[in-house]
């Protein structure tokens, strides 16, 4: 039995989580202030999924990886210059919003449609990867919705490990409460895996991989389809930033123990 997989990774762009993100109201609904000024990254959860996909493909000859990515075209272009150096993949870009205020149903529809249009994709060998969560404060349901649209019944969420058994069965470790894993066996693709963090380090930058990837990425970007969600699809009643506050105080004479006691008291009070 061939263990070659067609791995489709759904990974959209998000504003760099290291930036100060400030929601604002616009005539078109909530948005992030100065979003186009902020650098973007591949959603960190999806990035783990991509690295796992590349690792699996490297150990299963004949496999192929596609990255289906939603984001503003200009930002997609920038981010791909970094991601493309790390692992080999073919990009399926979708030019659309990625601020975190998009409707998960609409996003899932765009992504599912893009996946269905991939030429040469053998859905009987398809593993659909994505992030279990999203740094864009998504509802955490997009992957399930894509799976449902594509008719994928075997879905696993919070995945930390995928091992291919000698007989081709997929052993999957999903996170459960108590810091433990649920072990599942999946006989064969198609399957959907929403990845947690996995176990792989971020791959090294390899310019040769980047050069090879970019030969196809740039033309793909030029052909990117637009995906503008209907403005009436979702209405937000309000949006507010997470309750996070930085309080700076200079203490020169407190011991570490006193500082720790004070922090504990502050946490308890909060």
């Amino acid at each position: 039995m061939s263990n070659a997989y067609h791995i489709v990774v759904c990974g959209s762009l998000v504003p760099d989580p290291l930036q100060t993100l400030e929601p604002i109201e616009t005539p078109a609904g909530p948005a992030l202030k100065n979003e186009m000024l902020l650098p973007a990254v591949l959603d960190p959860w999806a990035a783990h999924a991509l690295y796992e996909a590349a690792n699996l493909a490297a150990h299963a000859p004949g496999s192929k990886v596609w990255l289906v990515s939603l984001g503003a075209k200009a930002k997609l272009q920038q981010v791909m210059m970094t991601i493309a150096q790390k692992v080999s993949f073919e990009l399926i870009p979708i030019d659309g919003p990625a601020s975190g205020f998009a409707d998960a149903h609409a996003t899932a529809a765009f992504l599912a449609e893009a996946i269905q249009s991939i030429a040469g994709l053998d859905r009987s060998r398809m593993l659909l990867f994505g992030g279990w969560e999203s740094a864009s404060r998504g509802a955490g349901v997009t992957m399930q919705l894509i799976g449902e649209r594509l008719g994928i019944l075997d879905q696993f969420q919070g995945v930390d490990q995928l091992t291919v058994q000698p007989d081709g069965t997929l052993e999957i470790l999903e996170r459960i409460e108590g810091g433990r894993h649920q072990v599942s066996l999946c006989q064969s693709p198609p399957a959907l895996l929403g990845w947690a963090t996995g176990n792989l380090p971020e791959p090294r930058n390899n310019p040769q991989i980047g050069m090879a990837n970019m030969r196809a990425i740039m033309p793909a970007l030029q052909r990117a389809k637009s995906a503008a969600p209907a403005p009436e699809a979702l209405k937000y009643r309000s949006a507010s930033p997470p309750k996070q506050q930085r309080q700076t105080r200079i203490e020169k004479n407190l011991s570490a123990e006193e500082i720790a006691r004070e922090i504990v008291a502050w946490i308890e009070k909060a």
Partner: protein
Amino acid sequence: MTPVSPEPAASFERQQMEVDIACVGFGPAMGGFLTTLSRSLLNPDGSPKLESGCLPGSPLQVICYERADGLGFGVSGAVTRGRGIRASFPGLDLAKIPMAATVKEERLVYLLDPTGASQRSWALRAGDKLIRALGSFLGCREHALELPLIPSFLQKHDGFVMSLGQFNQWVGEQLTSSGLLQIWPSTPVTAPLIEDRAVKGIRFADQGTSLDGTPQDGFLPGMDVRAALTVVGDGPVGAVGRGIDAHFGLPPGHEHSEWALGMKMVIELREDSVLETGTVLHTFGFPEPEIFGFLYVHPDRMASAGIFIPSWFRSPVRTAYRYLQHFVLHPYLWRHLQGGTLKSWGAKSLQESGRRGEPFLVGDGYARIGEGSGSTNVLSGSGVDEAWTTGVQLAEAVAELLEKKLPFTRQNLEETYVRRRRASWVDRESRVAADSRNGFPHGLLSGLFGMALAGFTGGRVVIPPPSSRKKGASLEERCGARIPPAELQKFRDEAAAHSLPLHDQIMNRCGWPEIPFDGKLLVSQQDALLTGGNVQAPPGYANHVVFLRPDVCRNCEPKLCVEMCSGQAISRGESGVPQFDREKCIFCGACLWNCRAEEAGEPANVDFRAGAGGLHSALN
């Protein structure tokens, strides 16, 4: 093949790749180069005009490598006349570049000292008293005097303000979307490859190493990229430019003797701010007479405020961050900035030797552009547009050589690129500026006089250069009149015991008020590192700041590298040898030119190598 970089001890096999033109560093100079060159790569029918020499049958392979993680992570407090930039983009619509706006109002302001702590000469104090006495007559307000005129050589009022990060991002987007060339971020280049006095390409930094460079699991030796032409635009502290300088030396009489650290805040002004977009303030006189400052107002209530700490400011406890906060707190500025929010922050070293620091611009297989090529005009205080223009000039030269199928030899590059540069306004104005700052090591007044002299005589009359350029006075020289020797020693001992820089203690004792942190605009230096983009240090790379000879550092006091470190990434270290924490380094490069070993006739003891990561902010 001579890579100008240390080799790991282990044996390994390096990957190799061949391109036609390898470019190092994506800043305004490289933006100008790639923008101009990209327009020469296609025929009118859209077919490739120039064929690759390394991949016959393919279009010309032009690849640019940038150390930072994003093309918009550059730092500059930029107001520019934009002559070169506008020439590249006729009819430029500034609205397309976020944070860019036409200069509406430009003022030159002398800031008096409202704190009494600034260390001013008797002549300056006398002048300050006179200004205060004639305050109402002169129009002095908020401890500041707006000068009625701005010398013509300083004026930028036909130009525009911008964020260099946003400008680079805008240029980068257009270049990459053309598909004609590639720009790779997160790719530190560690050294030029030099063979038979010709540059043959570049080498990337190794990955998968420990902090000391020892190969570890997943070791990936930095790839060698061979190229017919290496375009060096990695700035004043870039590893490739410095590697070429180290190998070939500088032209006779040239030296990299003058530097400055520019540090800025990007501030969101309060909602009722009356500052008009396009306002430009140039300041001098405070927080110390040697420190110049600026405030530029961008669209959407954003502003950049910053200072320059020059190498001729001989304080042994010079620190940019605290002085920047005192600058922001000056009543003349604070009335506008109070209630604002810090959105971003950054710093960079500026090569202030200008034309006197110009390296060999070309050689066999390489050409230099931008600030690292000595293009900054130190009289007008302008560098971005000059850098851009040198890139344009090189691109025109390269296109000419490619069309004529001539090789990138020193002679051919001299006859095309250097000839264009020498005939341009960049070179003409840099000659005027070359010796304009000679007076500053003697004091502010002689410095200003020297600038005026050079500016108004077209550089024909200048103050002679100083006989020596000592980097830092001793603590006793600088503070002896205010702080008794025993107390100075106590500060030294405390700083050593707690591994802290000296500047806070010394400045407090000299009368500088404590910074009233408000958690919004006035935050600790460590909080600033976390504001507007954070500092990233991807694992698997070696430390890029290395102290070469521990004994030299152990005996060095005060340690200017510690005092001047923009991110507090360098601390004193338990044994007296500075410790480097790459997770705080913003790659400003101040440690490089603040090493005092050279004063003792020794080579610099700080090696500033290629490294990955840095500040993640596109607002600077």
